[in-house]
């Protein structure tokens, strides 16, 4: 039997009411009281990204890009005469933390969310968006499910997707390396790894016959354990296989470890070409002179968009704020998400969720990579795919960009099929 005294009861109820009043636990009353409305003095936009943990090297640049965007927009007078207010939450790249963060932000009257480094975080937040009556623009998460079987109208993707990026890479490989027809992959054993490989293989099978007249020979990919610190057996498997070209979608620190350990096996002598799906400058900055030559996918490369005023101003400010002269593309994606919200708020005149959704659908707006259009059917943005060839170098940066390719997004984008899984 539970012994409840009057004092305990009153104490418990008082604490509960006090906590609910702070908005820490969302309640119907606090939710209504804090819902975004025209009475607010600012338009709130909420960044949920990995500022700590394994995704921090991607999340921190997003924060920089978001802050710069808000600063630039407010310096030009804000939106509809109101300034933007940036709220930030650390998701730690964990779905549970991310959903709590989303609820917290909505509880504070912020219904315009963006960020999400990992696909699992994006999928978790997207699932509760209708319930929260909020929107989410993802700035990195690459799961195809977000615009396919898990799509809902509250979700938007500001970046390219794996179908676009990996097929653009496959097309480039057919054009530049027509004699490399035997391909293999080293992919992490999770959603992102499998999706990127499927899209790349799909691209190889389409573009090699089309461009070279030869069917590629695509080996079964080598699945690496997520979070592994030893890739030796995976590398040994790659060395004993017939593949000459390798697609790698292992990312961040694991990619650095993989390439470090691969060197001793002579992997870079065997591989005629290596393609890194999405690591931007992460591996290059870590390995510096030891970085092998490879093609890498990116969201934005400042060097490829010189003359684009938004890109130039963004780059200058990033260097000023961070001192980093080789910023990564995640800066631009968060920057673009804020620009998207600003354009939608200007168009709709309100931050009401349904109005913002309507304003975002079909919206074309200028960004650091040129104009982007958000497709109305599945909320996938049509933007260019950015690829560059990197190599380690004995210079201050430790690496150099040898070549850049910009592939038009509309040339490689998937047909919109919201609600249906893509069949690759």
């Amino acid at each position, binding site marked *: 039997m539970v012994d409840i005294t009057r004092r305990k009861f009153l104490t418990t109820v008082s604490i509960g009411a006090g906590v609910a009043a702070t908005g820490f636990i969302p309640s119907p009353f606090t939710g209504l009281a804090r819902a975004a409305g025209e009475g607010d003095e600012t338009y709130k936009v909420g960044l949920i990204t990995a500022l700590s943990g394994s995704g921090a090297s991607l999340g921190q640049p997003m924060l920089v890009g978001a802050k710069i965007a808000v600063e630039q927009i407010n310096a030009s007078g804000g939106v509809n005469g109101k300034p933007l207010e940036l709220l930030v939450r650390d998701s730690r790249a964990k779905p549970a933390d991310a959903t709590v963060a989303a609820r917290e932000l909505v509880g504070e009257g912020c219904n315009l969310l963006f960020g999400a480094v990992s696909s699992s975080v994006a999928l978790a937040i997207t699932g509760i968006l209708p319930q929260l009556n909020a929107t989410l623009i993802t700035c990195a998460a690459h799961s195809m499910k977000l615009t396919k079987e898990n799509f809902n109208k509250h979700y938007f993707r500001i970046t390219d997707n794996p179908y676009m990026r990996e097929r653009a890479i496959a097309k480039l490989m057919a054009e530049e390396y027509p004699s490399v027809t035997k391909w293999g992959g080293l992919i992490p054993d999770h959603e992102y790894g499998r999706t990127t490989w499927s899209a790349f293989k799909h691209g190889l099978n389409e573009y090699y016959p089309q461009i070279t007249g030869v069917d590629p020979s695509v080996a079964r990919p*080598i699945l690496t354990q997520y979070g592994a610190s030893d890739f030796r057996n995976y590398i040994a498997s790659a060395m004993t296989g017939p593949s000459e070209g390798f697609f790698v979608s292992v990312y961040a620190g694991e990619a650095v470890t993989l390439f*470090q350990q691969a060197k001793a*096996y002579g992997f870079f002598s065997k591989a005629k070409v290596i393609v890194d799906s999405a690591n931007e400058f992460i591996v290059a900055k870590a390995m510096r002179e030891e970085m092998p030559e490879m093609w890498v996918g990116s969201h934005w490369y400042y060097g490829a968009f010189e003359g684009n005023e938004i890109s130039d101003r963004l780059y200058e400010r990033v260097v000023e704020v961070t001192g980093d002269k080789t910023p990564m593309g995640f800066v631009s994606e968060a920057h673009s998400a804020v620009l998207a919200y600003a354009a939608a708020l200007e168009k709709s005149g309100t931050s009401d969720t349904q109005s913002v959704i309507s304003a975002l659908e079909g919206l074309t707006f200028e960004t650091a990579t040129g104009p982007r259009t958000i497709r109305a059917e599945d909320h996938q943005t049509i933007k260019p795919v950015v690829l560059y060839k990197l190599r380690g170098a004995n210079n201050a940066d430790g690496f150099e960009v040898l070549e850049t390719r910009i592939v038009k997004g509309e040339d490689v984008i998937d047909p919109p099929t919201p609600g249906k899984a893509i069949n690759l």
Partner: protein
Amino acid sequence: MLSDFGLVAFNGLAWAMAVFIVAAGLTLVFGILHVLNFSHGGFLMIGAYVSHDLLSLLDGDVSTISYIGAALAGGVVVGVLGYFVDRLVLRRLKGVEEAYSLIATYALLLLCVGAVKMIWGVNFMSVPAPEALSGALFYQGVFMPTYSMFVIGCGVAVFLLLDIWIRRSRTGKLVQSVAADPWMCGLLGVNAPAMYTAVVVISFALAGLGGGLLAANQSLSPELGGHYIIQAFGVIIVGGIGNIRGAFLASVLLGLVVSFGTVYVPEYPGIFFYLAIVAILMFRPEGLIKQKGLA
């Protein structure tokens, strides 16, 4: 076929010795203080970063001697940190329930991660292996990277040094006595608190040394502390908690299981480590080598 097995076994041993280097200090602290030091990986990480900074000063080709020297320096730095951690934290955990020890040492790990972020940032770094260890040998059809051989050699050396120290040296036998019966040792004039501190410092120094030796094995990031710790805990539990020989045997066994599993059942990467632990503990819940105290 034989060369394939040989390569897989060799890679398994490399993994095993890397994990043993991490587990050695961990099992030492648990054997004496009965504290599961969750922050062990964090201090290994600090050792790796210290080595990285020292090697960066050389600004060029790193020799094997300087690589080992940097690792030793990392060990010294972390050993000193261990002294303060013992005085400020671990001493206060004596006699405290294990759950609280875990929480306290986990908090220490978070401090390590925060400190690394503040000092070195969140970006990934790497330490290239010395030129002399960057190549490979080819023997009987088995391809053996030199750096992997170095890691195996270091693991065996750490084991032999620890085992000889614990079993054959006077101080090692004193440490075993203090682990078995600190009260009686105190009555016999052994300064048990000083022994505890010495063991903690040695354990932390091993962590720092391990970080330095393994710096070229993987990327450096504030997450490095967590990379090996689960495997290290698995090894010391399977080996018999507080048992150096058990930890060595367990790391070899688990390393081979993981390696063969990765290659011959590639559809399920990473699962064999946990399956092996469950299987072993079902038949030997006390661990592979059942022995009281530290040995």
